[in-house]
């Protein structure tokens, strides 16, 4: 773990980072339970990648920066302003779901008020969107950046190349963060790309490239902070590859049988939530009493979010017909 003293992170920041990681983890775990209890049809997880997401999120300015997350980014969007209840409303497909009004599967994050752009299911389309947003920042001379995140699986798509190429050409205030958990569902990294590091591709796009330990939120924060600084200073885009771990199967519909037991065992041992907790305890940023309080608070938050979302109504069936186009008179 990189020492936080090599960054500008305060102890309060560190506590907030841990709190966001823990909240995301507990929310995610609850959704799995609800799925297994037959209450949610589908769950897709952030577990194991919270360090990367929280490190990146804290390096950005959530008031002005735009994010184009992918489906695992529960911790990232939580920092940007997605509330636990909003997550649950989406999971339960309720009418008040801010992300899609109950139209999309969970994990398709969207919330304009929190600078989170809407996402589809066909992967990597978010890269050109984020690049487009950063082109707007450059055009308007604004000190803002756009972030697109993706799994390493998405780096095989054409939109990855096309988007990064364009961002490189125009030195756009854009950051591409690969959350490399080494699996595209079941396909392992060595069947996805031949390069040693995906971040090496940055050279080909004319941008800064860097690989970082995705289990270390402080390290991720540091490289992301530097990337953001370069972006707003007109020094162009960055390609950051965070080496991460997927603790769960791909989704609630996946059995994970293509991974060996000892690998899963080792993943558990390397759980970023545990290692960050130990670091904070060692550094005396937190203590057991603090942890206990925070666990209890979060459990309460998650319980309340679950109950509230479950009790919320579905949208009327006719809501199916709404918002295809702008509805000038009754939109």
């Amino acid at each position, binding site marked *: 773990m990189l020492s936080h003293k090599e960054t500008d992170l305060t102890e309060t920041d560190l506590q907030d980072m841990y709190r966001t990681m823990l909240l995301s983890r507990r929310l995610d775990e609850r959704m799995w339970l609800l799925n297994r209890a037959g209450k949610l049809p589908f769950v897709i997880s952030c577990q194991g990648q919270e360090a990367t997401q929280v490190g990146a999120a804290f390096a950005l300015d959530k008031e002005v920066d735009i994010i184009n997350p992918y489906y695992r980014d529960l911790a990232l969007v939580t920092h940007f302003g997605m509330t636990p209840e909003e997550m649950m409303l989406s999971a339960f497909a309720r009418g008040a779901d*801010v992300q899609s009004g109950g139209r999309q599967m969970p994990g398709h994050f969207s919330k304009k008020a929190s600078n989170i752009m809407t996402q589809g299911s066909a992967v990597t389309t978010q890269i050109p969107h984020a690049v487009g947003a950063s082109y707007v920042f450059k055009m308007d001379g604004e000190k803002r950046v756009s972030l697109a995140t993706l799994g390493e699986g998405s780096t095989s798509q054409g939109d990855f190349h096309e988007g990064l190429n364009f961002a490189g050409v125009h030195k756009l205030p854009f950051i591409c963060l690969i959350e490399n958990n080494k699996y595209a569902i079941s396909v392992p990294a060595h069947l996805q790309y031949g390069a040693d590091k995906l971040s090496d591709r940055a050279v080909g796009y004319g941008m800064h490239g860097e690989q970082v330990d995705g289990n270390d939120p402080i390290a991720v924060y540091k490289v992301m902070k530097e990337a953001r600084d370069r972006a707003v200073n007109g020094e162009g885009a960055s390609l950051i590859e965070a080496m991460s771990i997927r603790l769960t199967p791909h989704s609630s519909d996946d059995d994970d049988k293509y991974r060996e037991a000892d690998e899963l065992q080792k993943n558990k041992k390397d759980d970023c939530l545990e290692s960050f907790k130990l670091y904070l305890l060692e550094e005396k940023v937190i203590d057991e009493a603090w942890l206990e309080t925070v666990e209890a608070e979060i459990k309460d938050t998650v319980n309340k979010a679950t109950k509230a979302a479950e009790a919320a109504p579905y949208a009327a069936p006719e809501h199916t017909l709404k918002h295809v186009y702008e509805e000038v008179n009754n939109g």
Partner: protein
Amino acid sequence: MAKLSYLDAIRDALFVAMEQDDNVFVLGEDVGKKGGVFKVTEGLQEKFGEMRVLDTPLAESNIVGTSVGAAMMGKRPVAEIQFAEYILPAVNQILNEAAKVRYRSDNDWNAPMVIRAPFGGGIHGALYHSQSIESIFVSTPGLKVVVPSTPADAKGLLMAAIKDNDPVLFFEHKKAYRLLKGEVPEGDYTIPLGKADVKREGDDITVITYGLCVNYAMQAAEQLSKEGYEAEILDLRTLYPLDKEAIIKAASKTGKVLLVTEDNLEGSLISEVSAIIGENCLYDLDAPIMRLAGPDVPSMPYAPPMEDYFMMNPDKIYNKMLELSEY
């Protein structure tokens, strides 16, 4: 009112829209310094600068994808796809992204953007510079598809498309670019999207078509008039969503309907128009609904005799119009 070509009218629309609204910007391959391969965007970069008239790398999905992103940020990008058939790499961004942004975000986000693409044949463009590809896009709710048939319509519809708050696909017939000339209103001029237009009145037969075929049908109608038959010509103008009311009205008026497209017949837009008429006008029909279209082959060949064989022209339309008139 100035007399402009179809191409000049489009350029005029871009000029006016960009002058009116700083959020409007143009991007695409060769649109900047060169002014576009057809010269539609000529002079724009000099006036509005490199950022607002942007030469992009050769990557259609990114052209559309970055437009979606910029549009979500409040810009009004007008992307040019150099030839309509090259839009295919961007189809994921158009159908899965642009068209669904508003719906999937429950009206939180929207993507006000225009994608312009020259389409159509008759210019010795062979298989990959002659296609009519509108049928791929005309069953996508969330997307609007527009094809102008006259210089005035080209300007009015493009300006309306740029001001529209949803994504619009704007297909320009490349043979019409310099062939068609007409009076075009100056300055800010819009024509509502989603409205078809009666281009000629008549009470013997109804011809429903769009794009360059409107002009061809008008020529054929003048010829037909000499035989004593008067054709009503309805220009669809917006191919999606279709102006059903206008279609039903025009079809019912004469009861004899000819549908014309330059696209190949099967699964083309006019099949949907035919279905609308079939569902709504049974008691007003006086003849079977007739369709005139290109042959069902992959695309338009290069050699002139084969190209002519495929390509629509006023004579083909005239013959079919006469057949229907005499039915």
